[in-house]
């Protein structure tokens, strides 16, 4: 049995234990902490045992599960999934810490967080399309509840919208998976859902042209890409902070991961032919996302729109289909995972302490909560791509790739980055400076359990921003694999 299987089972076992002990709500958070910490430590061992020089899936386990139908329980990690797997383990642990003072239906809450962690870890490590789809769907249910129960005023609407959008997208993905299953069966001579085998089957261009749009749609909803992004701001605004952190930090990465693993690696020829469509969608996301962020009065909505803009970088980096572009896209996924987690935590701090996130109702908070504001401005810096932070390297690499491939189109991409500076600084100015509103005279600074996760993220963002090579070494394999698939 692979260590990954154990790591997948741990949060689930934790959730079951919480269910068994639901009469004592106070212990739920300790169980959740223990389970997610165990996963984090376990994934540390995975990282230590991973050999970046090998191109294959490592720690792989393939066990027959449903042989009548070619389905197996297959997990494994390669250079594309490893960083995202680690990111999930890290954020899964940090959100438990961050949620330390949750008391409303605590067992249910922490149980859902753990189930969600299993789901996302499963998506990133599944090597079988069936398993992939199952984990993909499992992710929806806890998030639906997290938004629907602990969310804000319009949580009912937002949770339903989230569920419908992403469920429709995953069903469209299911259709494409079914088609690939049969086509691969014809080519290989036996029916299988194993992702590596289907990837190796090599579909003809005519077939790829049919499947790719379905996959693109499915993953673009998740990413999300304008114009199918509208679920995201609603979900973020209504979601509790921990759910927002996971939503932006890892759930959006599922879209990017799926795009590379399924859409691009299996259908590279179609991906090249559809490049114009992808580029238009990506530019739309980048520019519209930043533009919309400018006009938001809700801090969380602002960050949500900036997420859309930043995920546009992932999409256009992929569309560039050269080394710098793809590396930037992959790097951006991890960078955005860490940075957006920080941003949403900062936002949560303001929400919890001041009772509102409306920028127009805030002001002069620097005097009252200096630590929180300092961390927040650093998170803003990281997100707007100031050199030294992870975001800079990622965005720069993407722009380099875009310039190589599309020339001056890079100006539109850069516009997104420039606008980010504008909306972040303007927002910070309105929140931190000016006069403190009367009703906020008594606000206190950040709690320890909120500060610790943010500091961890900040340190990591800085470290990988200054030492990108450490991570690039692990990512290089996936970049080369994608380039090889496209015949470049």
């Amino acid at each position, binding site marked *: 049995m692979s260590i990954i299987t154990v790591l997948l089972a741990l949060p689930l076992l934790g959730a079951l234990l919480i269910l068994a002990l639901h009469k004592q709500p106070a212990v739920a958070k300790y169980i959740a902490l223990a389970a997610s910490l165990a996963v984090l430590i376990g994934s540390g061992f995975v990282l230590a045992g991973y050999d970046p020089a090998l191109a294959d899936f490592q720690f792989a386990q393939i066990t027959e*599960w*449903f*042989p*009548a*139908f070619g389905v197996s329980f297959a997990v494994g990690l390669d250079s594309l999934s490893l960083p995202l797997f680690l990111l999930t383990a890290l954020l899964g642990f940090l959100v438990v810490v961050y949620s330390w003072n949750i008391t409303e239906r605590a067992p249910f809450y922490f149980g859902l967080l753990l189930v969600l962690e299993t789901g996302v870890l499963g998506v990133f490590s599944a090597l079988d399309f069936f398993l992939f*789809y*199952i984990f993909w*769907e*499992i992710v*929806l*249910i806890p998030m*639906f*509840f997290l938004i*629907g*129960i602990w969310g804000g005023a319009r*949580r*009912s609407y937002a*949770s*339903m919208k989230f*569920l*419908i959008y992403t*469920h*429709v997208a995953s*069903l*469209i993905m*299911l*259709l494409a998976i*079914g*088609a690939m*299953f*049969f086509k691969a069966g014809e080519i290989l001579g036996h029916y299988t859902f194993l992702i590596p085998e289907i990837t190796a089957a090599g579909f003809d261009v005519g077939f790829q042209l049919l499947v790719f749009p379905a996959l693109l749609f499915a993953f673009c909803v998740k990413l999300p890409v304008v114009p199918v992004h509208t679920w995201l701001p609603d979900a973020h605004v209504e979601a509790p902070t921990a759910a927002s952190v996971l939503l932006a930090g890892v759930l959006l990465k599922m879209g990017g991961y799926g795009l590379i693993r399924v859409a691009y690696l299996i259908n590279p020829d179609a991906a090249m032919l559809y490049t114009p469509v992808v580029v238009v969608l990506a530019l739309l996301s980048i520019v519209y996302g930043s533009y919309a962020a400018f006009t938001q009065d809700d801090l969380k909505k602002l960050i949500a729109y900036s997420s859309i803009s930043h995920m546009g970088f992932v999409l256009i980096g992929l569309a560039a289909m050269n080394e710098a572009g793809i590396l930037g896209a992959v790097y951006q996924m991890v960078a955005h995972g860490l940075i957006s987690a920080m941003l949403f935590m900062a936002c949560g701090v303001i929400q919890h302490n001041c009772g509102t996130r409306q920028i127009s109702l805030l002001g002069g908070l620097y005097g009252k909560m200096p630590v929180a504001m300092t961390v927040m401005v650093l998170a803003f810096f990281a997100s707007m791509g100031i050199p030294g932070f992870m975001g800079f390297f990622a965005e720069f690499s993407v722009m380099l790739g875009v310039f190589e491939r599309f020339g001056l189109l890079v100006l539109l991409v850069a516009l997104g980055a420039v606008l980010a500076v504008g909306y972040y600084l303007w927002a910070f100015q309105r929140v931190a400076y000016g006069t403190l509103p009367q009703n906020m005279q008594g606000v206190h600074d950040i709690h320890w359990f909120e500060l610790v996760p943010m500091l961890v993220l900040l340190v990591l963002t800085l470290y990988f921003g200054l030492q990108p090579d450490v991570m690039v070494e692990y990512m290089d394999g996936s970049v080369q694999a994608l380039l090889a698939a496209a015949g470049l």
Partner: protein
Amino acid sequence: MSSLTLDQLILLLPELLLLLVAIIIMLLPKKAHNFAWALAAVALAVDTLMCAALWGIEADIMGGAYRMDNFAVFAKVMLLAMGCINIIGSHDFTETLPKAREYYALLVVAMLGLIIIPSATDFITLTIGFELASIATYTLPMIDSNNPRGKEAALKYYLMGAFSSAVIIYGLSLLYGFTGSLDIMAAAEVIAVLGVHPLPALAYVLLLVGFGYKMAMVPMHMWAADTYEGASEATTGFISGVTQKGAFIVAMKLVLVTFVFWSPVSALLLGVLCAVTMTVGNVMALQQNDVKRMLAYSSVAHAGNIPVGIAVGSVMGVAGSFLHIWAHALMTIGAFFALRLVAKHKGGTTLSHFRGLAKQLPWVSAALMLILLSYGGVPPLLGFWGKMLMVVSAIGRGGWYTVLAVILVLNSALSLVYYARVIREMYTKPVEVELIMTPKKGFCSDCWAIWLTVALLLVMGLLPNMLTELASAAAVALW
């Protein structure tokens, strides 16, 4: 016609046992409610095992009028298991019922009729089995005299059932007139030799319409919502979860054996019916405020889902249909027993009764949540696998089947909207209607049925391999 020998009689033991038990239950004293319940439940459980023991046997008995093969055994075990769960759950329902004895006797007789269907090799035996099952269930909706809407439900069910039986008989007479045979296989051979002809085509349409009534396919679904809603929950579970499933077995024989020669056209007709049925069922379900009526329409929608695999006609497709029959039967039985508990404790089943239910009846809510997720096709619950197999097999056949697959997938997404709405009401909304009675401690037969179905949905969902292999073997035996 050869006479019935003793070793052939052994194969008929399940049927004979049911007949015997039905008679014994009718002869019991009026007060013996508990005994009748236990006897019926044990008899069905034993019967399920007896049928399961026949797996792998292939035999023609009674001069070829009755056949035992993997298809028949699989279908029988499926129907008997569902009937058994339904009877287990009915204990609390019949406690206050003056006609408890009759209730169990009718259920057992209906089961007898149902397990005749899969073995029938000619349309006469098949119709007899089906009529036995139907007639036994016609009175079920009105068996509870405390339920004021039961009579209306029973009358609608009866009138539509009688009408559809007439249509079926008319179709059969046309088929007989044209082919000179009512044997399911022999008729197929004659049709294959003679080619396209309007008379058997008319027979096919009439049969499809007739059994379409029984399956509650649109536009023959009008009775279903009223009957399912008006009948007491335990009986709705039986009608929708068990009796109705017999019609799908008939549809398999009809479409895939007798009229297989016309398969592109005949399957297209069924496919169109499927598409219309699931769409109409889901759209109607979306607009319902009463969860019971919503589930009634969802049953209509699922009556459109299940035959998709039959229309596809491949082994995988039929296996998918079988899996979905399992899933839908389990979900329906479980859901209606859960509704019974909700109605009992809160006085109704409208959406407002479900608000905050998770705080009042946490375990029922949890079970109902799992059942609803399975309805919506969320993996890894069993409701997902049947749909999945059907979608994948439809894509595998290509052509217009792909369109059918897309329609099935979109409908599945649509259906999750109203299922999720109930879950949302239960878990995210504050309590609106207070409990009218506190949940009693101790034995609760409804809970047993609910948790049996949930456990089966989970176990078979996590380990779908065995069921799928058995279903595939059963599908192979069909031809």
